[in-house]
């Protein structure tokens, strides 16, 4: 038994060593999570009028960290831990942060995927979608269709993106979308749709045959990955500001 005791002692030490290593890597992970939690708290406690100043004075975060931060925001929102104002402020921070001149991205696709919405202002869903896909290495561009669709049509005719995404925040936006979809299908574009009206009233999906309704952002990202596979031959570097020229007409 003595030998076995020694062997077991050694085994215990090995287990301790591997656990120490595991603990260290967990600590590293926790370190990043702590940074994001601190950031979240700072934004929520801040004066929401000066998000730009907050971004300017913030630490630097990797694209992966910002992606994780978006996931944190979604989890907190679903758990009813955020007021609408707090969530909007967090998304605004991310949006502005990602638009800073120094932030570099490596995208999987060359032609930006249009993210369209029918409001005159940038809804939280579009802001979230834009930041989430961008931090998932998809080149995307925002298109506000509140006043006109002309710029979207011009972009499609000129750049021929393989897919268009719509985020619908109000029931009254469903009608203009039904009018736009046949034009998109005529040009062999895949149409991806999401938004609250389709969650609240699933039967609305029946008005959009041939369109895709992903269940969540993760499924959307996987879907885009598949659709854009052919566009992935060459990696490109570009700044977001170049891709956003079509956004916000107001």
């Amino acid at each position, binding site marked *: 038994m003595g030998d*076995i005791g020694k062997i077991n002692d050694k085994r215990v030490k090995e287990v301790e060593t591997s656990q120490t290593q595991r603990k260290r890597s967990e600590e590293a992970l926790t370190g990043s999570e702590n940074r994001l939690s601190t950031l979240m708290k700072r934004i929520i406690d801040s004066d929401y009028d000066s998000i730009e100043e907050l971004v300017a004075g913030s630490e630097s975060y990797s694209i992966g960290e910002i992606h994780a931060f978006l996931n944190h925001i979604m989890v907190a929102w679903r758990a009813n831990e955020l007021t609408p104002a707090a969530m909007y402020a967090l998304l605004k921070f991310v949006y502005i942060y990602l638009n800073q001149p120094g932030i570099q991205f490596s995208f999987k696709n060359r032609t930006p995927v249009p993210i369209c919405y029918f409001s005159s202002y940038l809804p939280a869903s579009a802001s979230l979608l834009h930041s989430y896909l961008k931090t998932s290495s998809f080149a995307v561009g925002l298109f506000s269709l509140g006043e006109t669709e002309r710029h979207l049509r011009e972009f499609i005719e000129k750049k021929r993106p393989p897919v268009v995404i719509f985020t619908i925040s109000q029931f009254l936006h469903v009608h203009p979308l039904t009018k736009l979809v046949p034009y998109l299908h005529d040009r062999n574009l895949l149409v991806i749709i999401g938004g609250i009206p389709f969650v609240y009233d699933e039967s609305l999906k029946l008005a959009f045959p041939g369109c895709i309704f992903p269940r969540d952002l993760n499924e959307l990202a996987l879907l885009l990955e598949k659709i854009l596979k052919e566009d992935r031959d060459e990696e490109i570097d570009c700044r977001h500001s170049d891709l956003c020229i079509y956004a916000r007409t107001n």
Partner: protein
Amino acid sequence: MKKLTVGIVTCASMREQIEECLASLESSFRIYPIAPACTFSMKIELFRHYLDKATTENDVTLLSYGICHPQLLPLLAKYRNRVVKLEGNNCYEMFLGSEKYAEYHRKCYWMLNKAFLTTWKNELLTGFGAGTSKAGTLIGDAFKKLVYVRFDKDELSVDLVEDFARTVGLEYEICSVDTANLNRLLEEALASAYSTVKVKTPKSLVSYPQESEMRTMLESISEVIYKVDIHTKQFTFVSPQVKRILGYTPSEFLDIMNDYLRTSFYHQDDRHRVVAGRYNFLVRCLNEGMQEPYDAEYRAKHGNGDELWVKESVYPSYSSDGIIESFVGKITDITERKKLDQLKDDFIGLVSHELRSPLTVITGAVNTALTEGARLSPGETRQLLKDAALEAELLSNLLGNLLELSRVQANRLVLYAEAISVKKVIQDTVEEMKRLSSAHQFIVNIPRKLPPVYADQLRLERILHNLLENAVKYSPQGGQVQVSVKPEEEHLVIGISDQGVGISLSDQAKLFEPFQRLGQSRLEGVRGLGLGLLVCRRLVEAHGGRIWLKSEPGRGSTFFITMPLSHS
């Protein structure tokens, strides 16, 4: 045609306008207001509750509510032909009509009516981050202007609107509307509801209970019902069941509940939580239109001094025009459920422990054999593997019992019975036990000639294994475990005796019940879930047999089972 009664489940933000519309209509109406889901996080059960109430109490039911909750439409599908929803996706679309609403929306105008500018002002400001310097982000980016949707009968000072607009940092304009559009939607919905209404059973055909029957029925209700006055917040009524369930007369109970300084009813650790929680709920209902019932589980004292666990729910009760007239609460005794919950929690904890213990040994032994194999002698390696095999066998038996029990509970136990020799089954099982426990002496007394029994061999092995394992566990090292068999007319009686600690008469009664081992103080060093005897009982009974024991504390125990003979 008889005058139909109409229930209207409405968003509380449009209750006044609905009431105004109804004044010009002829039917008899009852309003059921629900707080706005656009501002509050609400459970769909609240909608279900009011739809159930309205459909039960009225001939037809209308729903005057926007599509503001993700589960509202799926819920409405279940009330098809019973509830008609007014056209419109939200309140303002119903007030203003689709075109006007779309125009305001396109211009990014923030539409608000009186209810939001007064009753839910604080919630709204908190949600939008207004009232502080935080208003800018959401409101400033999303809205260009505030529009107060004003109805003729609103008695709201413009100063208040101005003040609100200033707080959120927006300009404002006033849009005067009447209830014409809402009235039209209401009439359309009513016409649709009347055309689909089903004729109810005439009241004369319904048999109502006699007074004596009614009393019996009321007495059998297992809930204490009480009423609270909305002005004084005092308990004004309690049902007579309070004597039977909580041990107080109605007047004693009302005295206790209305005197917040007396602590006799609540457990001291729960008192503040319950009293303050209930009071806050009443105030929020009255001031903010909250409706989700208040639920609390807490410890209370029975009139005889015993401690009880009770569940209390309180909800507002409305008059026909949708105004809160009182609060109704109910108290249920959940002591038994709490006890069972506790047993289950303990059981889950024990299962995790019992599964983890052998796995730790197996993993440790196998890992040591793998990593240190070259340095170990063959004897040491064999010992490690033997330890692992033994623990694996224990684990397998543990899981076997759990599975067997779950099959029985789910009525999925199938016996593959055939004529088998008990002698061989006993000998095999005893040999297996000898291998597992060399410290005990096994004595088997089996008559030379035994008729076969009609049994499922694997199940019989499990029964014997569990009984022998128990005998070994509770016997001292070196103790005797004896197995005897005696044929009777229709069955064989198998007895398994040990020289263990014995079991008192009071414990014997609980021995074959689920989780009962947990109720006893566990013996030092004895492993297992305490399910063995329960599994034995279920399996023996499934064979048409019986299980019992003879035992005295300090003088060992003998467990007996019967198995049907094959010829019988």
